[in-house]
């Protein structure tokens, strides 16, 4: 279907189903139950899953395929956000031009950064991208204040021109919309104890993300993607064959920059403001974490990683000592105190500690991320079922000669 082979079609349909039914799937617990705090089915968080999913898919096209580790991708997301807000200020509150211009501006900026940074590879490349991102961050904070509004962040105002649309409706800023359908509009469905929310903005993100995911699959399976993988496995040998790898890596860099810009544009579409802290290098670090955690170089991995981190970030940071005491209410007091004392540093504000430890464990023991973990578990089960064929496996999997 759509030029995908059978396996990819199944994967695509699976992701599509997950995304479409996410409002149900992420709300497994009834509204008033004890476990309702683990529900992630509210629009704000679901939008973030998809947006960071797009960001991570894009980053994976660069890092997963070519092996170039960029520490500056948040800059493209930031540029995209600023471009999006400006479109909303100048043109119209319709999100389409905002998203479109975010992609264009992020693409142009990444073309510039990539053209310079890709002259070096390895750690030098990482540091060059880091330097560019920090530079844009500092500039956005200081000199470019007329464009970025510095520390306060760029916001919409009542007297913005909005030449195509209207600058204000009844003394307030019109909401971000998709041809008249406000992004904030949601349809709530109550079933038994459950409350499901279907949000317009979420489904816009879903459509955009499915398109982005489809393009990523096509890139992964194309000769172009093969070329990028060749860059990762042995760039020197590739150059010896007389092939100039620079246009390929640059294209990958720009594509991933555009994905970042798309994510930035969607962020603006959901919540029309942009701040410089989106460009800081810790933000770039976050997308690296997502991609590695999910599994670099795999198709679904980055999306899973993004969802996992954003989910934990929201849920872990909401848990506090009182909730813990509720859980351990059945245990004797002393034991409950001890458990809460042990768990306390890892929850609430300490959630970054959990993230850091988790990330280290993944890098140390499971370099392929969640995807490799799932594969290993899968292999474990497969091996148990046909024990007779097990003997031929070691020979078949022996490494080919160099």
């Amino acid at each position, binding site marked *: 279907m759509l030029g995908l082979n059978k396996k990819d079609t199944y994967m695509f349909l699976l992701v599509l189903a997950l995304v479409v039914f996410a409002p149900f799937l992420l709300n497994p617990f009834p509204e008033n139950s004890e476990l309702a705090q683990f529900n992630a089915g509210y629009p704000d968080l679901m939008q973030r899953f998809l947006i960071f999913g797009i960001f991570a898919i894009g980053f994976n096209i660069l890092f997963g395929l070519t092996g170039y580790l960029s520490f500056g991708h948040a800059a493209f997301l930031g540029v995209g956000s600023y471009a999006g807000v400006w479109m909303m200020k100048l043109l119209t509150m319709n999100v389409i031009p905002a998203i479109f211009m975010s992609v264009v501006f992020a693409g142009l900026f990444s073309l510039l950064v990539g053209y310079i940074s890709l002259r070096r590879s390895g*750690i*030098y490349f990482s540091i060059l991208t880091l330097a560019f991102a920090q*530079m844009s961050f500092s500039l956005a904070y200081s*000199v470019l204040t007329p464009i970025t509004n510095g520390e306060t962040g760029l916001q919409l105002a009542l007297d913005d021109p909005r030449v195509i649309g209207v600058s204000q409706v009844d003394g307030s800023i019109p909401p971000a919309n998709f041809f008249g359908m406000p992004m904030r509009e949601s349809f709530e469905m109550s079933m038994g104890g459950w409350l499901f929310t279907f949000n317009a903005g979420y489904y816009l993100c879903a459509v955009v993300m499915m398109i982005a995911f489809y393009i990523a699959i096509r890139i992964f399976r194309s000769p172009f993607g093969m070329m990028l993988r060749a860059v990762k496995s042995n760039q020197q040998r590739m150059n010896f064959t007389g092939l100039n790898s620079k246009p390929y890596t640059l294209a990958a860099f720009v594509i991933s920059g555009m994905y970042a810009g798309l994510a930035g544009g969607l962020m603006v579409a959901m919540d029309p403001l942009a701040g410089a802290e989106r460009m800081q290098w810790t933000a770039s670090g976050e997308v690296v974490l997502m991609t590695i955690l999910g599994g670099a170089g795999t198709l679904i991995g980055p999306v899973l990683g993004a969802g996992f981190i954003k989910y934990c970030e929201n849920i872990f940071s909401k848990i506090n000592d009182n909730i813990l005491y509720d859980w351990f209410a059945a245990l004797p007091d002393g034991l409950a105190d001890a458990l809460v004392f042990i768990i306390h540093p890892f929850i609430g504000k300490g959630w970054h500690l959990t993230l850091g430890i988790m*990330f*280290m464990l993944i890098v140390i023991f499971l370099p392929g991320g969640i995807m490799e973990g799932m594969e290993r578990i899968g292999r474990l089960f497969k091996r148990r079922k046909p024990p007779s064929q097990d003997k031929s496996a070691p020979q078949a999997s022996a490494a080919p000669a160099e």
Partner: protein
Amino acid sequence: MDAILLQILNGLDKGSAYALIALGLTLIFGTLGVVNFAHGALFMIGAFCAVTLNRLLSLSFTTIDPERTDFLGNPLKVETPYVETWFGPETGAAIIDWSVPLAILFSIPIMALVGLFMERGLIKYFYKRPHADQILVTFGLAIVLQEIIKYFYGANPIPTPAPDAFSGSFDFGVLLGLDPNLIIYPYWRIVYFLFAAGIISAVFAFLQFTTFGMVVRAGMADRQTVGLLGINIDKRFTFMFALAAVVAGLAGVMYAPINSPNYHMGMDFLVLSFVVVVVGGMGSLPGAVLAGFLLGILESFASMAQVVALLPGINQIIIYLVAIVILLTRPRGLMGRKGVMES
């Protein structure tokens, strides 16, 4: 003239911090070939050693003084640090006052231990992994260390004053026959610069004039051959990692009075120090020191009012700009050796 001199002086103290961190980074990179993203965290731990010692020394007990009253008329509570009861009020107060210099002694064993644990417990397993993995795992470690510190000390900067004796400023202008108050410079920054210079020379002297240092240098040049000669080079490299951690920690201890320590100060310095290392040339110790001071001074020149008026925002980006230009024109950095990280 005086403006230029002032900027050079201003650049020296920031440059000393860059140089010290970059020196440690280069030591680790040159010996073990590991890109250590957790080095900034070591710097931060050093600064928090100073905070901890200050707090330990000021531990006090409360007595109620019935003769004096506070503004509500209640008897006044008087806090007396234990140190003052042990050593007498004057010596005790002096000890608390000098807590930052004392923290130097306090931090050396701590930083050495942290360094040893880091190398033996984690980094050891990453020698054969790609550089990207090393970056990622040390990046994760940096987050973990940072969050541990944040858990114990909170997110706000903690002021840690220098001894009173160094609290004033020194008038350089008078020394050079210029008008007074033209070039004034805080004493503590002079101390910091001298301290950094001392540490840097000590490290170089250690590498240059001791047998141990000679073996380490030989190992940096050709690890395999040194190993074949029957020398346990791994052990010495572990020691060098601990030494690098101590250097970063000391840089942090002494920096505490200049900039109140907070949990993310390490990350802020780390990015810049990496840039410094790259500008100096990966694996070159003199290059790291030179680039540290150069970039520190350049940064302070760029923040002169006249320069900022000419090129707004230049003070924020000058270091990155220089790094980009250097990397593109001299890929090996200022003093980089051939064959280091050129795959």
